[in-house]
């Protein structure tokens, strides 16, 4: 309760949470909020400016931009959850085990592999993985998730290194509690705060990365409305009709801003160094 109150006092964090809540509601109620089928083409309404029955105008195929932006929220939410979910599933267990047991594997195999993975520029790595696995949303998510995993390994391991020498862990060991139980029941719950903060910030990057891969044509494939692929398609008509570019871009901006503000608010609430 105290934490919630502290979070509510962050102001910008609350704005971020509200933006994300709006996104979630938009994704859930897309069918009710969108006046048109996002893929319905109308050749009598090509490149219309905003106004009338088309709130954000129409694209070069006569599709309603507002409806496509609303449905695009579904892709963005999925991108944020799936990519970060994959990164957590890979990164957190490795970070926990590596940090807890330490030794050669931790120092020379896991951490040096993390260094090596982080040597690859993130988008180039994602691009290369997406290239070998093939185009499509699922592969793009795997690529982004793998790209994010090293950061989760590093953060989780850092936490474990701090916690493993605490008295309550020594006490658990002395009473014969098994290592895996110590790791998952005693260390993990106390290492969660930085992981939560990192997850929120990674979701912002996940949405940007999905939009970037889709923009390059390696993520979500047409005609599925994703904000990145909408920008890709809008590029050819941006001189005649800027609206097809403006609105999907603004949607990306607000959602990423929402996650960044939320991450910032959570950091102020949960990070003890800042909390002090």
């Amino acid at each position, binding site marked *: 309760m105290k934490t919630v109150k502290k979070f509510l006092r962050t102001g*910008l964090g609350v704005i971020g949470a509200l933006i994300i809540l709006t996104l979630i509601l938009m994704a859930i109620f897309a069918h009710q909020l969108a006046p048109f089928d996002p893929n319905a083409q109308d050749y009598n309404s090509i490149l219309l400016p905003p106004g009338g029955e088309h709130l954000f105008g129409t694209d070069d195929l006569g599709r309603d931009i507002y409806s496509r932006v609303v449905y695009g929220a579904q892709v963005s939410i999925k991108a944020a959850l799936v990519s970060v979910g994959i990164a957590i599933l890979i990164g957190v267990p490795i970070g926990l085990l590596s940090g807890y047991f330490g030794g050669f594997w931790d120092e*020379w195999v896991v951490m*040096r*592999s993390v*260094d*090596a*993975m982080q*040597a*690859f*520029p*993130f*988008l*180039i*790595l994602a*691009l*290369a*993985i*997406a*290239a*070998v*696995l*093939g185009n499509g949303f699922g592969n793009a998510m795997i690529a982004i998730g793998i790209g994010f995993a090293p950061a989760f390994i590093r953060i989780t391991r850092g936490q474990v290194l701090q916690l493993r020498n605490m008295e309550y862990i020594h006490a658990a060991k002395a009473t014969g509690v098994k290592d895996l139980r110590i790791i998952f029941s005693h260390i993990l719950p106390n290492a969660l705060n930085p992981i939560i903060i990192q997850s929120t910030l990674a979701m*912002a990057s996940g949405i*940007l990365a999905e*939009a*970037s891969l889709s*923009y*390059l*044509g*390696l993520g979500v494939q047409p005609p599925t409305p994703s904000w990145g692929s909408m*920008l890709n398609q*809008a*590029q050819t008509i*941006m*001189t005649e009709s*800027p609206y097809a*570019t*403006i609105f999907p*871009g603004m949607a*990306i*901006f*607000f959602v*990423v*801003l929402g996650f*960044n*503000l939320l991450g*910032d608010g959570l950091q102020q609430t949960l990070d003890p160094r800042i909390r002090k």
Partner: protein
Amino acid sequence: MKFLVRRLLLTIPILFLVSVLTFSLIHLIPGDPARVILGQEATPEAYQSLRAELGLDKPIIVQYITWLGHVMTGNLGISITDRVPVTELISQRLPATVELTIGTFVVALLIAFPAGILAAVRRGTFIDYTSTFVALGGMSIPSFWLAMMAIIYFSVNLGWLPASGYVPITENPVQNLMAMILPCLATGLRESAVLMRMLRSSLLEVVNMDFVRTAKAKGLNEVKTILGHVLRNAMIPVVTTSGLMIAGLLGGLVITESIFSIPGFGRLIVESVFKRDYVTVQGAILVSAVLVVGVNLVVDLLYAVIDPRIKAGKGVS
């Protein structure tokens, strides 16, 4: 010297693992890479020839050792589609990317330093809140969208700057500069936000330290205290961020180069991905990773210059 040797030795296992990961890339292709590259209609002769060229007919350890041997001598293979050495393709494309990186970095520094210092000095005021909000906004703008907006406004509506038409700096410096302004601004604005936030928080940590109070007590004015005492001590996290930024930029420029049709390194990767030229993709990502390892090494060595405690092995307090 000991620090330098230790730091150099640490890069060896990293480079080794980078090479293993890069080599594995082509083997991540589901199914037979040669079949995937050539398609189902390829003749058996073409298929066998490509398998032999890629070394796929040999045991994997032999493949890796042969590949690594070639890489060590600067041979990254022959592009599958362009039939020219990958090193040649990369060296043709790198100058534009280097220029773009420097330009972006300059834009980022020019915005981040005054804004970061001002936000830290005027902490808790309207200026601070505004700059924090603007910085978070800047970090949230997709740089490719900003680039598209810049093209619509500055190129299409106002006609001030070209949207494409890169000319090498050696051919026509003026045209080159005109073509690079928008790409550098579009990418640099976002990077400046990251740098500004780091500089602000780093300055805030230092500004309350005893030596700063002493400097002020001695009668030093605010500008001299900040520039002469605080800034140098606040530089370590900023240098780290700048190093990471350059690494991130290599990735981010993939898109900027695609939007502004700049024949750079990033665009080479995108083109190669679409042409299924995996040898070029492999060579290019290896070069990008080695560049990042190199930048990180330089950053670590810079630490020692900025903070002599590191060189002396005492760490940072």
